[in-house]
């Protein structure tokens, strides 16, 4: 009878309880990790203060820049990285309780959707970028520029084979050779540009012509460039800098290059990333210093050299491989007008380009 004392059922119960306790300890440990972080960080915050940034630009590009900012200012910057769209939605749900100080967005559309949550920026800050690269009411400022372009497969085509403007691609010879990403925000901003520059009729004609050429649909810019490089399609309508990521990773053998349309027009529209300061920011001073830093020579050089984007302030040179902004025959439109995409989306839906 006494041999039954070490009951295996009881042992399992104890094991289970131990397991639970271990996990609880883990959970508490990892939450107190965070507390430690903030208490450690309250050290430098005595001198530099704290800053909470919601960044729709990805960590792989922005984290090194944040470190430089922290080193330069002593400010402890905490960044919440996610997609521009989900961050905009999060900010709207948080409302005036939001812990965020700065919103750093991938496109003007994201900034436009939270415009009632942000406060005007100083004239000095706003004045550093050209007029076209900021919101007309000084509520956000452009940080870096990217050009719309045509990426082409170098095995299949040479620049002489390519038309002068986007309208050339409506020619039936391009049937089955085009890749595009109609759900992509930058693409939709370009079509919005078309509607502003060309007007509704001409934009419809263009969409009709392209759809008739049965373009391959990609989820966004990256897979479009990848598919162009592999020869799945021969041309793609994309932003210019993705190509340079592929060249950096795969070497010069990557069989695609950018073609900047000599005829200009909406096909070479310049889009911007931008930043704004929340009305409810607890750290408004640090937030201004962050925007000041983003528009400094150091940060703008970083965008030019590391992310292959166009710097927006005077005195910072673009990367060598990029053509001059002035030579791009960029259309004369205000980027903040590109933020309203609803009508464009309805148009794209009408042509079956959007679900």
């Amino acid at each position, binding site marked *: *009878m*006494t041999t*039954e*004392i070490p009951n295996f*059922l*009881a042992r*399992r*119960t104890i094991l*289970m309880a131990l397991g*639970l306790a271990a*996990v609880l300890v*883990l*959970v508490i*440990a*990892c*939450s107190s990790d965070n507390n430690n972080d903030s208490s450690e960080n309250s050290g430098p915050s005595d001198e530099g203060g704290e800053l909470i940034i919601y960044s729709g630009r*990805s*960590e*792989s590009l922005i984290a090194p820049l944040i470190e430089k900012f922290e080193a330069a200012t002593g400010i402890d910057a*905490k*960044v*919440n*990285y*996610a*997609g521009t*769209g*989900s961050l905009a*939605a*999060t900010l709207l*749900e*948080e*409302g005036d*309780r939001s*812990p965020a100080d700065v919103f750093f967005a991938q496109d003007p*559309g*994201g900034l436009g*959707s939270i415009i009632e949550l942000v406060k005007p920026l100083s004239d000095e800050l706003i004045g550093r970028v050209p007029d076209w690269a900021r919101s007309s009411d000084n509520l956000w400022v452009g940080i870096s520029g990217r050009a719309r372009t045509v990426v082409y497969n170098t095995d299949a085509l040479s620049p002489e084979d390519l038309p002068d403007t986007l309208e050339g691609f409506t020619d039936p010879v391009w049937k089955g050779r085009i890749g595009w990403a109609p*759900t*992509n*925000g930058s693409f*939709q901003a370009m079509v919005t540009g078309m509607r502003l520059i060309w007007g509704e009729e001409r934009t419809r004609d263009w969409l009709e012509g392209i759809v008739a050429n049965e373009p*391959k*649909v990609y*989820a966004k810019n*990256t*897979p479009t*460039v*990848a598919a162009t490089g*592999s*020869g*799945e399609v021969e041309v793609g309508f994309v932003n210019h800098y993705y190509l340079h*990521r*592929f060249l*950096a*990773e795969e*070497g010069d053998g990557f069989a695609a290059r950018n073609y900047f349309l000599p005829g200009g027009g909406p096909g070479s529209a310049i889009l911007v990333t931008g930043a704004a300061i929340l009305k409810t920011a607890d750290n408004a001073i640090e937030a201004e210093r962050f925007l000041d830093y983003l528009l400094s020579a150091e940060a703008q050089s970083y965008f030019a050299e590391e992310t292959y984007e166009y710097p927006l302030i005077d005195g910072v040179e673009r990367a060598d491989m990029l053509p001059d902004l002035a030579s791009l025959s960029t259309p004369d439109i205000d980027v903040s007008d590109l933020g309203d995409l*609803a009508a464009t*989306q309805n148009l794209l*839906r009408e042509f079956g380009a959007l*679900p």
Partner: protein
Amino acid sequence: MNRTRVIGEEAPVGSGSTWTHRRLLPPWLRREPLSLWLAAIAVAGAAALPVLYLVVRAAESGESAVDSIFDFDTLAILWRSIQLIVLVTLGSVLIAVPLAWLTVRTDLPYRRAWAVASVLPLAIPSYVGALAFISAFGPKGLLQGWLEGPFGVDRLPDLYGLTGASVVLILLSYPYVFLTVRATLWRLEPEMEEASWTLGRSPWQTFRRVTLPLLYPAIGAGALLVALYTLSDFGAVALLQYDTFTRVIFNEYNSAFNRAVAAALSLVLLAVAVSLILIEASARRRARYYSGANAARRRRRIVRLGRWRLPAFIFSSLVTLLALGIPVFVLVYWLTRGVNAGESGLFDWGAAFTSVQYSLAAAVVTVIAAIPISVLSVRRPGLLSTGLERFSYVGFAMPGIAVGLGLVFFGIRYATGIYQTVYLLVLAYVVLFLPVAVGLIRSSLLQVNPRMEEAAMSLGRSQINAFLTVTVPVIRPGLAAAAIMVFLLTMKELPATLILGPIESRTLATSIWSAAEEAFFARAAAPSLLLVIASAAPMTFLVLRERSRN
């Protein structure tokens, strides 16, 4: 002697408390402790939060959001989603059921290795899996490159659209069915199969006439998860160019920035999910699946495959090669290419540690949260218990972004203290993955004869004590499978982690996303491989324990 004394001490306490609440409750509630009902209701209530949020958002804009649903070609999108769901669910069942049977019941060579390998595709995020498949089998993928030299193939057929999306989703989601079926196969008591053999039926007839019908609840539970997962997936359908609801919803959040329309569309998606849940419920048999005797400890006969051994081996190899081999191969290819190009510091151990912490916490909390609902729905099938159980499934069908925003909405208002902490994040994981745990725990509970527990109670154990000491040990494989499945799912979860994760926290999934978003494939490959390795560890543990028990 000892045991009698223990019972003597416990009996008055246990019977006293049971007696008190029984008098207070209506008859239909009397048999289970009130605390169990309250716990189940609280858990289902948490699962309801995101739905409530969607209703608030969609209603806020009045009729305009509802009208806008008709701006979309909703019927066409619905039809496309249904085609995909049917194909993926059927394909998953056809792969998973034979594979589960082969790895549990036969002399298939290396069956434990296959068992581990067959679950691992679950650890691969769908966007990584889809990206890997496109790189490998795309019109100009790696395969085409190899074929071009010797055979002059300059282009492979397109894998985009319905075909590609369903193949990739089948390969990434059949493990849901595999795991539920496997957990049940372990607990099936051998007499009926033995009787069938004694009566001269072949192993195949026995499988079809005896084993398979016993597996229906498990297949149904797994198939429902596959169907709901397919409905909520964004990564694979976006990359493989197949328009479903999630793509439209994503577009509303990310380029139209219209939360009201996104919420209205998400509610349509939920209606589809509820229909799927009801279909499974009506197909579910009411029968119990336990036998009178406790035969759990008896040795099970292993089916000798004979001449079918080679085909079975080839089948298992092929599934693993496609579902696990191809993605891992492509990831290693990206990684070596990056390393050769001089990239360094690719492995982010901190992110791996954070992922494991979150996933462990999610696994334990979700399994505990799933127990009350599972027990009540098995032991007290009725309107309330079944309703609670069915309701717990909705989170799994919802786009992660909607669950994330729903908890932002409630968290920032009513739980500021835990906002942007791991606690709210774990709650999101519970809401998302509860049905996975409920499904697995339910199927193993169905095989426990409640009379065992009743016997323990008649010997004076309290109900909770009897449950913990009698039922829990028997359903342990189900509990373990549930914990591991939630662990794997949490490891790769992205949208809710991005929205609700503590600020500055970085997980493997967010690192992969951040790198892949900018086409840094080598930097995406390293955390993807870590994700697979970290998920392999608990799975291997589970399979090795099965061996020690049998």
